[in-house]
């Protein structure tokens, strides 16, 4: 397969000894009748013959005349593969809240009479929380589809960061043994779509639960009309080679296969935050760990 060429279009007036790709790379083309077969083979290697848009061959006084357009679809094929994996992972992710919903329903149905009030309340709480979790996963899928199709409709409203965080913790509480320290978010309000901002914060927090250490911090600060919310942890941080592609769709670290995740969370976070007029980026936390920073317009 041809690698390293984002898009390759070639139009040949006559078969040359070498072809030049759009990235300036010279591609050798040996002489003789094999030139034609090489072209076909090249099309098949990069993708398949059906994806080579045009190919005409004629004998002229100047020699063999050939017009060809070859497109390297390696990236598109890679994306298609990643998309298939994403659908698989998304379905897999949905099984977890569905399992809790099904088990809570069974427990309530089987043991309603024998259950104490506290146990009943807890089972109902699980139902509510896991329904919200499943809803968030479905909302992510819909947003991804709408963002790609340019159909996403956002609300712009004043969002109280402390209240949004409280709701996020209700939906995605920290696992046992993990502490979350929240500072500087009291009375801080920013402009965003409230529900989607909560999705962003939920994503950053659940990533920290999965990949971070046992101590998380959320720091809010306001400066010159902007609100900065940093979500950091004391885990191992993101591997250096992964950082440049961290916000690309379908990116997951090597540990992600073991601990789950659909691979679009951070890509969606970036698109949502940018749609609100803000920015999101990654920093290495000190002395170690990951830190994700979201900056959005402040409102008073």
């Amino acid at each position, binding site marked *: 397969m041809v690698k390293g060429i984002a898009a390759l279009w070639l139009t040949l007036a006559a078969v040359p000894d070498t072809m030049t790709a759009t990235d300036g790379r010279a591609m050798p083309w040996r002489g003789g009748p094999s030139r034609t077969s090489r072209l076909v083979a090249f099309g098949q290697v990069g993708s398949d013959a059906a994806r080579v848009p045009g190919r005409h061959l004629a004998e002229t006084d100047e020699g063999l005349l050939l017009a060809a357009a070859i497109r390297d679809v390696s990236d598109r094929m890679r994306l298609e593969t990643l998309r298939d994996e994403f659908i698989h992972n998304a379905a*897999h992710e949905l*099984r*977890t809240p*569905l*399992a*809790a*919903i*099904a*088990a*809570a329903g*069974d*427990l309530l149905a*089987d*043991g309603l009479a*024998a259950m104490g009030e506290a*146990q009943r309340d*807890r*089972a109902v709480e*699980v139902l509510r*929380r*896991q329904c919200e979790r499943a809803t968030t996963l479905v909302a992510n899928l819909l947003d991804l589809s709408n963002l790609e199709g340019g159909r996403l409709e956002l609300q712009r409203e004043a969002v109280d960061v402390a209240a949004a965080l409280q709701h996020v913790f209700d939906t995605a*509480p920290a*696992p*046992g*043994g993990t502490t979350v320290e929240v500072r500087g978010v009291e009375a801080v309000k920013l402009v965003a779509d409230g529900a989607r901002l909560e999705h962003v914060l939920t994503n950053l927090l659940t990533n920290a639960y*999965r990949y971070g250490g046992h101590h998380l911090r959320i720091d809010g600060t306001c400066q010159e009309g902007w609100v900065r919310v940093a979500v950091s942890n004391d885990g191992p941080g993101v591997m250096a080679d992964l950082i440049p592609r961290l916000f690309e769709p379908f990116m997951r670290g090597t540990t992600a296969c*073991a*601990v*789950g995740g659909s691979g679009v969370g951070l890509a969606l976070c970036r698109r949502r935050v940018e749609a609100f007029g803000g920015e999101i980026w990654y920093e290495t936390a000190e002395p170690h760990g990951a830190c994700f920073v979201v900056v959005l317009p402040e409102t008073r």
Partner: protein
Amino acid sequence: VSATILVVEDEADLLYLVRAGLEADGYQVLAAASAEEALGVLGRAKPDAMVLDLRLPGMDGLELLRLVRRQGGRLANLPVIVMSAHASAGTKRTARELGVTLYVVKPFALHALRDAVGGALDQTPPERA
């Protein structure tokens, strides 16, 4: 004396529900939120069966099971019921090779898991006898 079941599950809500269901059947339940925690529990207690999630933070469930089986003795034959969202034939085959008694795919009916535990212990749950 009722049987003791070790439940290994990192999702707190699911752990709570499985525990509540098994306790309703009269079992003693020990809980672990990770493979490492489970190894600690297995070092100091002697559960009669283990209910195991495969996707865990850190060491995964199959790796835990390999370690458990390698320790030999009573752990070589400890009845294990897997509850997992992984439903691939390959994962199921590996689990079978590691001596898993039953493989329950999430989402599952809680009574199916409770019955599976009873079946793995080859006895009727004490409270449902």
